[in-house]
């Protein structure tokens, strides 16, 4: 009850609730495609790679997503370059790049005497979200939603059967890269609320849970979006009530729900 009372009283809590719903929904949408394509760990790498950008942006007092965006693109370019010009496999290059970037980010934070902020950056502080953050997240999410709705069939075909999609004249590489771009954008808008370390969970756990509930792709996306939004709200409630960090609260709630659904899924198979 206290949560609901506070919700009416404090605008920061309203902002937190709205952004929770927005990022839960959009991450559930984009994540549904990426877990089936097997690209979810690219999101994980990306979220770590943007840390130096966030640190620099924080020290300069500019919006965090600008720094995150620049370093996200930089990391992706380095990954593409080294993969192209070396015999190494892309997972090796991804691991190498994101850990180096993450190390650099941590050093910048410690040298910039921003250690107090480090915790927020790593684990998120949904209560520090401003009205501007809410509006920009909403705009970005609506754009992503429109793109996926219009080109749904092309994303769907490119995800399920690349060879068939190509034979039908669909530019599979373009749609896959567009998806990774959207994945990165979602990570950047969710960083402040969930934190660098756990942001990928939002892109993985709700779609994974939805996959266990339904055998129809279109329904999986819908469930994933609903589950993502609900888990963000529940996580925020727990975070506020028990004074736990917001990112881990949301992820823990998501993991518990996944576990419950998994048990039911197995029981249904066995019985």
């Amino acid at each position, binding site marked *: 009850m206290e949560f609901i009372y506070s919700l009416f009283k404090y605008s920061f809590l309203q902002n937190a609730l709205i952004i929770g719903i927005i990022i839960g929904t959009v991450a559930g949408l984009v994540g549904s495609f990426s877990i089936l394509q097997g690209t979810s760990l690219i999101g994980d790498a990306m979220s770590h790679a943007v840390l130096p950008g966030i640190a620099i942006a924080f020290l300069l007092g500019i919006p965090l997503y600008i720094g995150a965006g620049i370093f996200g693109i930089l990391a992706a370019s380095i990954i593409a370059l080294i993969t192209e010009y070396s015999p190494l496999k892309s997972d090796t290059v991804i691991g190498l790049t994101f850990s180096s970037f993450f190390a650099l980010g941590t050093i910048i934070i410690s040298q910039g005497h921003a250690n107090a902020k480090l915790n927020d950056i790593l684990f998120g502080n949904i209560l520090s979200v401003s009205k501007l953050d809410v509006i920009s997240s909403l705009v970005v999410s609506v754009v992503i939603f429109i793109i996926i709705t219009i*080109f749904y069939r092309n994303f769907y075909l490119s995800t399920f059967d690349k060879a068939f999609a190509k034979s039908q004249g669909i530019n599979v590489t373009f749609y896959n890269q567009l998806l990774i771009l959207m994945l990165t954008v979602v990570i950047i808008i969710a960083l402040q609320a969930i934190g660098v370390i756990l942001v990928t969970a939002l892109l993985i756990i709700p779609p994974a849970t939805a996959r266990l509930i339904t055998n129809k*792709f279109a329904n999986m996306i819908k469930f994933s979006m609903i589950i993502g939004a609900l888990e963000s709200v529940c996580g925020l409630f727990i975070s506020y009530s028990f004074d736990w960090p917001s990112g881990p609260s949301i992820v823990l709630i998501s993991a518990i729900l996944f576990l419950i659904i998994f048990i039911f899924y197995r029981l249904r198979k066995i019985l």
Partner: protein
Amino acid sequence: MVKLKINNLTVNYGNKNILDNISITLTSGKIYGLVGSNGTGKSTFIKAIFGINKKTNGDIFLNEEKINKNILKKFFSYVPQRSEIDLNFPINIFDLVLMGIESQKKILDPINENDKNKVNNILEKMELTDLRNRLLSDVSGGQRQRALVARSLIQDANVYILDEPFIGIDDKSETIILSLLKEMKKKNKLILVAHHDLNKIERYFDDLIVFKNKKINEQTPKNYVAEILREAR
């Protein structure tokens, strides 16, 4: 009549040459077998036609018109190898076959009753009606192959190209697929089927394209089987 002309096709993967300057003209009303042992470039040939893998050199014409994305989409239909399909994807047999129609629709053009009826019709021909709501991962290899062939045959194409549809499937699935391909042949379609097993070649195909040493040549099934048997001795 449909004529598919391949002119001086060369495909390299990196430094490795897979197909070397091959040319052939194929005409409709026939089922062609693309034969040859594994790794001789049958799938490479198919993927080069569809632009799935880039060709290094050469041109492909359909009725004297150089093929491009639009011609491929409108007049060609493809059945990929069954092993390339992701079985963990949440999709049932009905939706898989429907994909054949969806992929040819304009963006945002919805699926209508007529489309659904078409799917139901072909499912019936393929004897898959009872399995229409079953997940792709929950049916047998032969049933899955029938669904993949149905996804292609539902498209109103002129050229149908199938990659190894007869490998590892049951007799019933084989008979059903073959009879439907023969039905398409009667409608004067051009059908190409990659196949690496010598078995039943004479039953399946009217004519063969034999892949050997980066080159191809046309042969009748009877002569090819006789030649292979002679080599074996």
